[in-house]
């Protein structure tokens, strides 16, 4: 190494006093020398080491000064040695020459080694030392420069090699990648592509050069790509990823996932973009297929709720302005009967046939046909022009459904009801539209089937209330919101107890206590009546059975009203028998109140239930006696023991100071008719003593209502029996 201390210095360091302890005057001279040159450049030794080094050089110069013959060459070596220990600064030379020139001859004299021709010799020595120093420094500088230049070249070569290797790696990746790689200018024009780009875009690489990246995606995806790219080039984002579709010239759809990154030059200024294209067509097709499966009704192939919901969101988008939308909600009439009687496979075939026809109609009208589940279907019509336009569509659909269907040897004639809503999209949403259509459908069903009804906000709100009540009824029954209370029925002759009349109530959490007119008809319409009546019958019999066990013969007879539809249910008889058996309640202690109509079938013959009930021993009470005056005759042959009358005309008997003769006549006629039929007459809703007196006079046998006693719970029967008998009829005080 060129900057390694010289051999001389090295040995010197190892043995600074090799020739014995130097003369103190020489040592002092060397210290002075060291002091003047230190700090001009870095010398890689400690000060004492430098002292030794310079003592040695002083000795050599002294020797040279005195030597015979005179030879200045030793001084040149000393000059080179100085440069060797890195005393290289011109200032070090100047100070050395000054020191030697002024003090070396003096030192030689002091040491007793004065040479002849001292001044000439001194000049000669100094000149040689300068020459040796400069020569060595020059060699050293040249060597240093050579080393540093080589180092720079080496570093550059290394950098270039690394760059070349890096470029080779990049080329290898570029060429062999299955990903499409495009080098794109900041202007969006393609500058370079790899082969995969050609494969992905069904063309060749060179064909793509110079084209704009936006040409590699379909117009509707251009905006999202342009936006992402602009952000990248504007250095708002570092990189992006976006899925776009491209329709190749041969109509092939190519889905690509494009990722972009910005490349900057050495100064950090954006230079170009690198876009990577991954062909994700297969993934997209799979996704679409899965999406279709997930949004298709498996039985009919129609859209399911999911797809309907998605398409409704599109149809309900408020742009463009003033859009309207139509929804038809269909429900097959009596589908349950078909399913129950012919079996589910036939029912499914019927649904499929109906679906095909609906789909055909929907296609012609640009609508979407969807199956909501069960026998419910929906047609969604986007961009309608008013309710009137819906009429031909819905009528055509109903007509198609009514066309007979031949399935496995059966010719089925289905029909459907429909609720239709047609509205501006503004101010509504999918859920609300479907609910309104459903409620409208419900009204269509209520008002008679096989027809359609157009949404009417006001009428729908009443319908909605009923709809909600009927929807909540099953859960209400499970939650024990229904209960039974009793009211005494008392003879007017002596106030004696005839029976306890069971009253069904619904303790509705929001509406409070509801009486049967609120919910019985709803229950009959939805089929809930069977469950509700079974429950009522079972409750009443259990209560009465319990009374029997507790009170024996004192237990009262129990009257309970049954819905007409329930009474005609062929299953009633079985249920009735099982309830009697379970409760231990003798049928003779039971009076069943039924509407007159319920006793007869469509052609006017008594239904079988009547006879069976009589065989079991229960008594029948007509609870709307007189409603169909002219038909009363037909009751003559039936085992009906009593008739109940109720209504406004009874109340008016007491309210007015002077009774309306028509009311008196009506009551009189009804009572007379019942008597002629051998039935006792019970009047309901009797609240006042005056009312009771009037009815007694007119031949009414017993009354119920506030006058006869307050309602009570089954547990409280003893207290009700013990209650003081209110003044009734003529015998009371």
């Amino acid at each position: 190494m060129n900057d390694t201390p010289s051999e001389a210095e090295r040995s010197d360091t190892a043995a600074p006093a090799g020739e014995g302890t130097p003369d103190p005057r020489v040592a002092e001279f060397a210290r002075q020398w060291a002091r003047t040159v230190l700090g001009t450049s870095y010398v890689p030794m400690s000060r004492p080491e430098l002292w030794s080094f310079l003592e040695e050089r002083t000795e050599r110069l002294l020797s040279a000064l005195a030597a015979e013959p005179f030879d200045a060459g030793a001084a040149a070596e000393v000059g080179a040695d100085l440069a060797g220990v890195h005393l290289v600064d011109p200032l070090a030379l100047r100070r050395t020459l000054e020191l030697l020139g002024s003090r070396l001859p003096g030192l030689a004299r002091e040491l007793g080694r004065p040479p002849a021709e001292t001044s000439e010799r001194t000049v000669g020595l100094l000149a040689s030392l300068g020459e040796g120093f400069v020569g060595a420094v020059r060699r050293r500088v040249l060597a240093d420069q050579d080393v540093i230049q080589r180092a720079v070249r080496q570093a550059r070569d290394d950098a270039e090699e690394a760059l070349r290797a890096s470029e080779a790696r990049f080329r290898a990746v570029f060429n062999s990648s299955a990903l499409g790689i495009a080098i794109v200018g900041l202007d969006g024009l393609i500058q370079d592509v790899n082969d995969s780009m050609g494969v992905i875009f069904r063309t060749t690489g060179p064909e793509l050069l110079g084209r704009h990246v936006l040409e590699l995606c379909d117009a509707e995806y251009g905006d999202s790509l342009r936006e992402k790219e602009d952000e990248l080039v504007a250095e708002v984002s570092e990189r992006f990823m976006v899925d776009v579709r491209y329709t190749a010239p041969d109509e092939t759809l190519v889905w690509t996932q494009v990722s972009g990154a910005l490349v900057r030059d050495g100064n950090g200024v954006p230079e170009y973009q690198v876009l990577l294209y991954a062909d994700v067509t297969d993934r997209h097709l799979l996704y679409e297929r899965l999406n279709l499966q997930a949004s298709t009704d498996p039985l009919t192939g129609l859209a399911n709720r999911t797809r309907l919901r998605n398409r409704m969101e599109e149809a309900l988008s408020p742009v463009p302005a003033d859009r309207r939308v139509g929804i038809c909600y269909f429900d097959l009439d009596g589908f349950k009967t078909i399913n129950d009687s012919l079996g589910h496979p036939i029912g499914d075939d019927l649904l499929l046939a109906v679906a095909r026809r609906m789909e055909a109609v929907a296609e012609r009208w640009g609508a979407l046909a969807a199956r909501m589940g069960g026998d419910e279907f929906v047609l969604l019509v986007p961009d309608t022009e008013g309710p009137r336009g819906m009429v031909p569509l819905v009528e055509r659909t109903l007509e198609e459904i009514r066309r007979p269907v031949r399935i496995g040897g059966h010719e089925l004639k289905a029909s459907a009801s429909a609720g239709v809503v047609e509205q501006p999209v503004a101010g509504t949403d999918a859920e609300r539209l479907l609910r309104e259509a459903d409620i409208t459908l419900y009204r269509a069903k209520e008002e008679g089937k096989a027809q359609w009804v157009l949404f009417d906000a006001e009428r729908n709100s009443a319908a909605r209330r009923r709809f909600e009540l009927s929807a909540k009824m099953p859960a209400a029954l499970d939650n024990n919101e229904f209960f039974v209370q009793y009211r005494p029925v008392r003879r007017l002759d002596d106030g004696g107890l005839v029976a306890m009349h069971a009253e069904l109530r619904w303790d509705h959490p929001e509406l409070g206590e509801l009486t049967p007119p609120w919910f019985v008809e709803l229950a009959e319409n939805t089929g809930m009546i069977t469950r509700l009546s079974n429950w009522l019958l079972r409750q009443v019999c259990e209560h009465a059975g319990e009374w029997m066990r507790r009170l024996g013969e004192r237990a009262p007879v129990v009257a309970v009203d049954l819905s007409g539809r329930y009474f005609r249910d062929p299953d009633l008889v079985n249920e009735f028998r099982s309830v009697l058996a379970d409760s231990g309640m003798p049928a003779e202690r039971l009076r069943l109140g039924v509407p007159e109509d319920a006793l007869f079938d469509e052609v006017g013959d008594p239904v079988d239930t009547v006879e069976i009930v009589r065989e079991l021993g229960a008594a029948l009470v007509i609870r709307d006696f007189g409603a169909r005056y002219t038909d009363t005759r037909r009751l003559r042959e039936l085992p009906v023991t009593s008739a109940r009358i109720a209504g406004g005309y009874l109340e008016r008997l007491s309210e007015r100071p002077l009774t309306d003769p028509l009311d008196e006549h009506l009551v009189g006629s009804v009572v007379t008719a019942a008597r002629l039929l051998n039935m006792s007459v019970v009047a309901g809703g009797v609240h006042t003593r005056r009312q009771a007196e009037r009815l007694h006079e007119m031949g009414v046998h017993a009354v119920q209502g506030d006058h006869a006693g307050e309602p009570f719970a089954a547990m409280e029967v003893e207290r009700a029996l013990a209650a003081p008998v209110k003044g009734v009829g003529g015998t009371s005080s």
Partner: protein
Amino acid sequence: MTDPSRLPSDVDLEKASAARCYDYYLGGSHNFEVDRELARKVESRVPHVKPLAQDNRAFLRRAVRYCLRQGIRQFLDIGSGIPTVGNVHEIAQELDPEARVLYVDNEPVAVAHSRTILEGNDRADVVQADLADSDGILGSEQAARLLDPERPIAVMMVALFHFVPDSARPAEILRSYHEWMAPGSFLGFSHVTGDHYPELLRSIVDLYADSSNPVTARSHGEISGLLKDFELVEPGLVYVPEWRPDTEEDRWQDPARSLVYGAVGHKV
């Protein structure tokens, strides 16, 4: 290169390099006009910059010799620069030819230079890496060949950390080396400060701002904080002329004018 995925930094001779300026202050000729230009500017504002640099170099020599006296025979010199005279391997191998030295620098020219002058010396080598990449340095092939992590080592970080800005988390960097060093190891450390001559220091900071190596000066307290994991040998963290001078004559009249604190830390 420790990270093959990274391109080497440009060999940029348009900008002055701190390492080559340092060489100039020491009297070396491993420098270019662009370096000398900056060095002369510094000299015009801080006339004693040459003795200052030489004294820092002398601190390195004394610290290395101190470690050698403590029995250390392996050295890791980070930020070694353009080794002019008095390199660590010269100091160490003069005493014991078997001593091992690994140089580290992040500048490609400095590394190439070291490689040139170390040719044929199988007990010294150089790694191009950044100080912060301790895993890359300590896990390098050269480190595996030259250094024994189980034995005490001297890590030299002379005139280095003032090129590490606070944002690069110098304390964490130092901690990663401390963890790796075997008990009994030493750390040679020096760092410029503006504690007593802020205006002189400011000149240097300003002039170096545009070079490849901007300077962050730190106070005595901040530097002590960086070194808190080490036990500092006598006389602690002091201006470098005060750190175990060879002779009384080597003490400066006003040591604070050296602008550089130095210390040797001991990992117990």
